[in-house]
């Protein structure tokens, strides 16, 4: 069977797609953990990362580069993406969330202010740069389609390796931060019980804004990877954001391992199910959402449940 023969190829594609979902989903989950809110503008943080890294990479890329040079450029892209996105996320928290928190606004008001911020950022970036949907990153320095690995007919290209490795390293780093540092402990404490954490001397405001910084950096990494792999534009965030949010919910929102798992699972499902002969790629999103609904109906708090967040 055709599909079965190509399954390993689809799996690799799903893994790359899923890694990026997971990176963005982690941002949703982190914020949900500390604020119990959907950060609707997170998709725009992701988009900003792509633009930010492009501005740097497009300056560095022209000319001949060896392997080391190319790696440096990729690293620079990852870093600038992370920095720009982290800054945008931090600003976002400062402008769209903090004032509302101080006023004790209803929960939906946060959602709407984030939506407002999202509209604003999409169009501001469109105005500042351009409104095309598929701007290409420089590619010549990278030779991104060069095969790195061939295993029984499955080819893994250079860009795929970069995406998976970068995502993996970033997630390991995140795990170290959350479980191994003082900041991580305060994030977990705030997620568990903010008032008590405050009594324990944790600065809630600072913890929240640093959580946004971390989530933003992850999205920025994803932004660069996505842009380098598929192109970027001011509207790239929305759909990617919706899927990543779905992935976060799938894994159990507020749960970091859940977000990683949800992202990978969603990516793989999207890559392997639609090419089935009796389904079709036009049903990709339907497949994704049906899987989501089915899982939620049987596990109302996602695959791994809400570990970081509070269960009601």
């Amino acid at each position: 069977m055709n599909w079965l023969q190509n399954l390993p190829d689809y799996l690799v594609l799903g893994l790359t797609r899923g890694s990026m979902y997971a990176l963005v989903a982690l941002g949703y989950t982190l914020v949900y953990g500390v604020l119990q809110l959907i950060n609707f503008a997170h998709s725009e943080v992701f988009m900003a990362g792509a633009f930010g890294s492009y501005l740097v990479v497009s300056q560095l890329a022209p000319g001949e580069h060896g392997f080391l040079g190319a790696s440096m450029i990729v690293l620079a892209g990852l870093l600038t993406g992370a920095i720009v996105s982290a800054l945008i996320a931090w600003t976002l928290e400062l402008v769209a969330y903090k004032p509302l928190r101080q006023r004790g606004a209803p929960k939906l008001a946060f959602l709407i202010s984030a939506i407002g911020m999202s509209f604003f950022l999409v169009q501001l970036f469109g105005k500042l740069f351009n409104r095309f949907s598929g701007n290409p990153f420089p590619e010549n320095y990278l030779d991104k389609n060069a095969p790195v690995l061939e295993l029984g007919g499955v080819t893994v290209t250079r860009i795929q390796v970069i995406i998976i490795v970068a995502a993996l390293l970033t997630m390991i780093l995140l795990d170290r931060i959350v479980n191994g540092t003082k900041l991580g402990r305060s994030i977990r404490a705030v997620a568990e019980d903010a008032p008590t954490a405050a009594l324990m001397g944790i600065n809630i405001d600072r913890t929240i804004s640093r959580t946004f910084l971390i989530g933003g950096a992850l999205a920025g990494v994803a932004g660069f990877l996505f842009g380098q792999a598929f192109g970027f534009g001011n509207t790239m965030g929305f759909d990617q954001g919706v899927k990543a949010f779905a992935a976060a919910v799938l894994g159990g929102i507020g749960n970091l391992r859940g977000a990683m798992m949800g992202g990978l699972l969603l990516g793989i499902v999207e890559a392997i199910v639609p090419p089935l002969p009796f389904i079709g790629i036009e049903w990709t999103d339907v497949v994704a959402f049906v899987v989501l609904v089915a899982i939620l109906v049987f596990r109302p708090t996602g695959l791994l449940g809400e570990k970081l967040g509070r269960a009601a």
Partner: protein
Amino acid sequence: MRNRSLAKVAAVSVAGALALAACSNSTPNNSGGLNSGSAGTGTQGAIKIAFQGPLSGENAQLGINEINATKLALDQWNKANADLQVQLVELDDVGDPAKAPAAAAKAIQDKEIVAVVGPSFSGPTKAVCKTYEEAGLVLVSPSATNPDLTKTLNCAAFHRVVPPDSLEGDLAGQWLAKKAKTVYLVDDLTDYGKGAVDAVEAAVKAGGATVVKREGVDKDKTKDYSVIAQAVKASGAEAVFYGGYDAQAALFAKALTAVNYPGLRMSGNGVLSTVFSTNSGADGDGWYISCGCLDATKADNAKEFTAAYKAMFNTDPSTYSPESYDVTNAVLEAIKAAKAKGTVDRKSVWDAVKALNYKGLTTTIKFAANGDVENQVINLYKQDGGKIGLVGDIKTS
């Protein structure tokens, strides 16, 4: 023009209003007072044409390609015809059928507008054509290619200078069937993409080739074309046809290269643009593109147009620019013809458009009863070295 005076503007219409009052007083007991109001309607202050198309939103680039050409044509016209100055009104319908009625209302309520260039897209056309018809405004579209518009819509106001998708798709399908035994069809789930692929599908089958599979990839939602590219490759099809627009086709082109797809790639007129060639770069080389249009940067009789366009907008003309240029010129000719016969109003321009016989850059504009041009040519293009070039008439290539 800062110190314009209102007086010029007002002279005509005020005369009408005052006459209305004065005369009616003097002729009691019959309706003569009412009729005398017609004194004010004999001449017109200005003649306007409207352009309706997407000037914002996802599809803005196509609209901008077209309106630029329209502006160029008008500019040239107004320089050459001091006695028949024509102004342009821009109507943005975002390419969305639901937003089109508002744009149409704006055109209809401005009584000085006598003809409309557009709408650019088929969906908005369907939504507003009847409204225009009722208002007596004639439409000439440079790019609405859905076959229904001239088949089932039954809207006398509508004309277009491009062949319908069915014709283009038909010939593209025949060409594909000659080149490949197995064809994989991908559309972008839009009105245009689906229509084009429908026609290709039928023609490919009729030509004796097999359609391996037909799939759709959402134009707005998808950036990652790797799965569909892998599916195309896995199917082993000898050729793939993509029905959709430029930016997405470029993404698809890259994905196909990434999976090392060995077969033939082809697409329709929506892809013929610099956006495709710049975005896809080397990955787009080898793509064949069919289009019922002329590449204005290449065709011989269009050098002047290309130069003037580049001079005015600092960029090469792109998809549908030459068509739009032709449409605008044809409409202006119709206005001129109407003026020669008497007054320029919606009715007279309508009649003049129906009677047009104008040789444009892309085709000879002479409308059949259903609103399509009588003479329809489909050309084949190919991208090489990052540039799209003309191959020739698709029937003979």
